[in-house]
């Protein structure tokens, strides 16, 4: 008799970042279906679904509701860092665990969270390490007005300075805002070497569309010359971006290459989250957050992201880093680094190894 175990699923099925959220939801539900279809699995997962609809104030109450009304002790969910930070107090109070399948800005290692997508040393640092020597070291930084954009751009400022470059501007829009004309005017006026885009959802689509228009009138802003960089752009948003995305760059642990595989790293990471959780629960159906470090120590997992491990001290995944360029509705790999260990606090960051030795300048 298989043991039936409740797990929470907390993804918005609507709202401005719905495409990302849907990709995570799809990966989660597919993995649950695969676990349940596996005749050898000693457990059956029962999803307890709640839909916060992209409303930040709904995450904590719905997470609490999952814990209070079901047997679930694990929740797969949350897309924005803001929503992750909203549910952490609930996890701490209820002894729960969040399996978080999205890239984030780092500087966190909560024992109630398993971080299954990339942190800055697995996206931003290698991305700028790739771009700056090829395109130049002066950047323009964009973000949606919350912690992901603020912190990612803050680290980017440091990286750009370490590379000897300048930040020509740093601008934020409220989540969901689509009037990007001022940002584009400023970029046109300052002519950076690249634009780091930490806008999310509809703001990001509006910006990429306007930037493509800008490039039509001024070849300086063509992607071969002044690309737009992202640390969270995947296949799941390409339909909303269309031709405007072509040639721009993104970093992530995975880009889809064949059909039948997850269609984006969000889907792959959510799928992997359920896989790792299922293997944990198969060994110990009542496993909680307190059992995670011992379970992760020395373990490896075969997932759509490849064979991964999870660092027991930070609960962040070791992941490949892939830098992809948008082509025909998909990403072409331009650089790939295998098995990059997580460094969420950038404690091992070394500017010389990322950008080479600083050039000496004549001081007059």
């Amino acid at each position: 008799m298989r043991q039936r175990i409740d797990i929470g699923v907390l993804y918005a099925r609507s709202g401005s970042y719905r495409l990302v959220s849907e990709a995570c939801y799809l990966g989660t539900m597919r993995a649950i279906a695969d676990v349940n279809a596996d005749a050898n699995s000693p457990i059956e997962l029962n999803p307890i679904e709640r839909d916060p609809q992209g409303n930040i104030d709904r995450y904590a109450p719905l997470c609490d509701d999952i814990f209070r009304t079901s047997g679930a002790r694990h929740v797969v969910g949350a897309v924005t860092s803001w929503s992750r930070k909203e549910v952490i107090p609930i996890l701490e109070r209820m002894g729960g665990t969040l399996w978080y399948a999205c890239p984030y800005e780092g500087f966190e290692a909560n024992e109630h969270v398993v971080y299954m997508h990339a942190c800055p040393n697995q996206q931003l640092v290698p991305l700028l390490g790739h771009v700056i020597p090829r395109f130049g070291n002066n950047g323009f930084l964009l973000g949606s007005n919350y912690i992901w954009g603020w912190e990612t751009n803050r680290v980017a400022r440091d990286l750009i300075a370490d590379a000897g470059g300048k930040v020509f501007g740093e601008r934020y829009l409220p989540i969901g805002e689509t009037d990007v004309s001022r940002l584009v005017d400023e970029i046109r006026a300052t002519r950076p070497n690249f634009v780091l885009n930490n806008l999310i959802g509809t703001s990001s689509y509006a910006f990429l569309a306007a930037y493509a228009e800008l490039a039509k009138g001024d070849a300086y802003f063509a992607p071969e010359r002044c690309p737009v960089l992202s640390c969270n752009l995947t296949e799941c948003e390409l339909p909303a971006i269309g031709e405007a995305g072509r040639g721009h760059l993104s970093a992530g642990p995975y880009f889809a290459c064949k059909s039948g595989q997850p269609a984006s790293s969000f889907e792959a990471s959510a799928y992997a989250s359920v896989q790792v959780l299922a293997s944990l629960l198969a060994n110990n159906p009542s496993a909680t957050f307190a059992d995670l470090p011992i379970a992760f120590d020395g373990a490896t997992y075969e997932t759509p992201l490849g064979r991964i491990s999870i660092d027991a001290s930070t609960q962040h995944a070791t992941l490949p880093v892939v830098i992809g360029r948008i082509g025909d509705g998909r990403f072409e790999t331009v650089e790939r680094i295998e098995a990059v260990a997580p460094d969420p606090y950038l404690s091992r960051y070394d500017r010389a190894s990322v950008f080479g030795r600083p050039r000496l300048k004549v001081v007059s």
Partner: protein
Amino acid sequence: MSRPSRIPNLGGAKAIILHRPHATVSTITRQLAAIGLVVRDHWPELPADALAADFVFFDVDLGFDQQFPWRPGEAPTPIIALIGSEAPGRIEWALSHKADAQMVKPVGNAGVYSALLIARQSFEARQRQASEIAALQARVAERQTIVRAVAALCASGVDDALAYDRLRSLAMSWQIPIEDAARRIVALTEQDGRDDKSSRA
């Protein structure tokens, strides 16, 4: 001009926790290890190599002066107070050690990272201030020398305002602080005085 990186490079830094074996120690140790620090805990005494630690967390509830290889308020490294009981005597003792940051017990799942950054910044500011104060005190101590130098320059028949201006322009032309110039003039004057005496003898 080179510029220090703002990315806090804490990887491999050494932290010592001065606390009896307790859940507080394991909670702090977990967070420090996740950030990338090397952690040890000790009780009741800090070993001599605590002087080389990058951070010291210390228990305020049961702490006492003899635990530390330094005098109260003279820690050579950033120190972070772990406060449980808010008894005024204990707070007073923690203040006497000039803690650079504090954490209230029981320690939660977060808080260590901000304590590290705050402690380091506050320690560096304290060090900087101490050396500025020492330099200022040294200059203040030279006031008497300046008075004597001005008096010596007045001996040539100018008033004290003009003598002070002359002292300043001498310091500028020698490219040294005015206190050093004053000391040089006093030394020269005393030398002349002795020469005069010896020539009279």
